[in-house]
């Protein structure tokens, strides 16, 4: 590593040995923009994801030699600070994805419509394309993955392949379903499954309030019984009975929309998975084919109905937020906080209003070339 080039922090899967690694450039399957990938002859292709700290919280790296290691790498010396706080993460990637735009280009006619041996097939599809394809071709993983999306025949002991859209769809469909099985990765699950399916808070709060109301009316009834019980028990019950929740009341306490069923969330997960794969790894034409395929194999109507209902309820909840009762439910602190902020804004405005015309004119003077007086007079110690 050259001494004047700062190192990059790259996180590798522990299974991959750090020798024989190569960073190559291939067109991205979705955008076709040349993108860097990490490749290992036996472990296959890895995609490189750059994690950058947000500009609002800048970060940097402090590298120190591990104390146990007697001889730290030469470039590290006694430690180093990297101004760039980004990190590169390498994750295993199906080499199939980078080949897809070549194997199944836009348009119905495939490039290769006859059976070819692996080497010829790969050469055929990468011919005239930019990028370090030889590393992909050489990898053993590639042939296995290629076989999964091709029909094959035996020709004199050698296998020959022909790309097959049907097989491809099966593979992609399988990927979606596998990704959606169980739960998605935590952040995706939260953002794309739980949040879209969450019922509005106001609705839940209204339910809770109703429950409390119900509990109180029962308590009132009990009190009444206690007071009058000594006189005439039956009358007390008759007097108190209007307070009893009627059957129709308890019916209305049922939530208008039940929590999303397992079926609905599973459907949403499959949809999210397919969208993720389509947007990250598939050329547009294949993404369309995949979503068609999924629509055929799964019935998304319950999910769509549920989401439509949610949208309606949310709109109602927003409208209801202007309601007086909801305003009252703000916490005391919030009110105090808001009042204080209002006061501050008013104070600033008042101050602005109090400035005279002459003072305003002075503020508009072009001060170009006029140094501040602090440049001439030094501050006195307080």
């Amino acid at each position: 590593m050259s001494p004047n080039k700062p190192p990059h922090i790259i996180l590798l899967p522990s299974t991959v040995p750090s020798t024989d690694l190569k960073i190559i450039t291939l067109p991205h399957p979705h955008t076709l923009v040349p993108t860097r990938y990490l490749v290992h002859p036996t472990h296959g292709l890895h995609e490189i994801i750059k994690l950058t700290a947000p500009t609002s919280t800048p970060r940097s790296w402090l590298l120190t030699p591990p104390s146990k290691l007697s001889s730290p790498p030469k470039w590290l010396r006694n430690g180093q600070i990297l101004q760039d706080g980004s990190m590169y993460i390498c994750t295993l990637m199906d080499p199939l994805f980078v080949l897809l735009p070549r194997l199944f280009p836009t348009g119905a006619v495939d490039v290769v419509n006859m059976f070819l041996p692996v080497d010829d097939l790969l050469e055929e599809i990468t011919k005239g394309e930019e990028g370090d394809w030889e590393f992909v071709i050489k990898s053993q993983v590639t042939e296995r993955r290629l076989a999964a999306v091709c029909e094959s025949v035996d020709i004199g002991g050698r296998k020959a392949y022909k790309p097959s859209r049907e097989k491809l769809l099966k593979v992609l469909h399988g990927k979606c379903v596998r990704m959606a099985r169980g739960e998605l990765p935590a952040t995706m699950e939260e953002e794309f499954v739980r949040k879209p399916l969450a019922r509005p808070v106001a609705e839940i709060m209204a339910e809770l309030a109703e429950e409390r109301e119900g509990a109180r009316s029962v308590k009132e009834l009990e009190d009444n019984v206690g007071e009058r019980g000594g006189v005439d028990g039956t009358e007390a019950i008759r007097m108190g009975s209007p307070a009893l929740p009627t059957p129709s009341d308890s019916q209305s306490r049922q939530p208008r929309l039940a929590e999303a069923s397992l079926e609905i969330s599973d459907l949403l997960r499959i949809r999210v998975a397919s969208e993720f794969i389509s947007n990250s790894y598939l050329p547009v034409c294949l993404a369309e084919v995949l979503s068609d395929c999924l629509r055929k194999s799964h019935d998304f109507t319950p999910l769509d109905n549920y989401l439509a209902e949610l949208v309606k309820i949310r709109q109602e909840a927003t409208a209801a937020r202007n309601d007086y009762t909801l305003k009252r439910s703000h916490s005391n602190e919030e009110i105090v906080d808001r009042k204080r902020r209002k006061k501050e804004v008013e104070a600033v405005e008042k101050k602005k209003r109090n400035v005279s015309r002459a003072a305003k004119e002075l503020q508009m003077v072009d001060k170009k070339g006029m140094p501040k007086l602090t440049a001439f007079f030094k501050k006195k110690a307080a």
Partner: protein
Amino acid sequence: MLHKQLILDACSYLLLVPIKLPLLISPVLEARLEQAGVLKKVVDAIKDLVQDCNFDCNDSGIALQAMDNSHVALVSMLLKSEGFSPYRLDRNVALGVNLTSLTKVLRCAQNEDILTLKAEDAPDTLSLVFENAENDRISEYEIKLMDIDQEHLGIPETEYAAAISMPSAEFQRICRDLNQLSESVAIEASKEGVKFSCSGDIGSGSVTLRQHNNVDRPELSTKIELTEPVALTFSLKYLVNFCKASALSSVVTLSLSNEVPLLVEYAMGSGFVRFYLAPKIGEEE
């Protein structure tokens, strides 16, 4: 006999108490100014440059130092303790005042009124009493004070290359006239005189004052003390603003040195108002 004496002692002691109480809450500052007009004019001269500032009261008098919002101009004011009669101060106090509020209260005073400033220890308010001797009227006002965090600049004693004293009305007229043509004025001082020149969109103009001595009315003389020629450019809007202090004194002194802030001084009988303004540097046209 002894008992009677004790009781008498106690009585006299009791009598003393109500007399002592007003002394306990007597103000830390009490400054009486024969003419309210002086303070009125001082505040009027400053209030457009600075909005809030501290009046620092110490043995030498009541002082004020503040920069304008853009920190290109500074005003330094002193009302010497000799100007007040009496001037009583127990402890140094800083009175943080909003000048707009102070102007409002001072408008309630006539120029000939006797003005008394009073403040307690660690004061929340400054009280102003205006007495009119002619019609035996006493007005009392209080204005709320504020905590102002102000940094003070140390202004070194400077030997200026040129010191021009001239009638303040003349300086005001020149600034106002040139302000119509341009944003900035070049002041050139040489042995022959001092030249104020400007050029703007509609044209250019200049006013030259030669040194002359008016024996009958010395305040109308123009004097130039020069060690070396000076030429500097300043913002006219600021100078026009400084000229609001013309009511304080019939004579104004401009002190200039190259690459140093201009000093515009209005001297009063017992005090001064000084304005400092940063020159325009590196904008030769």
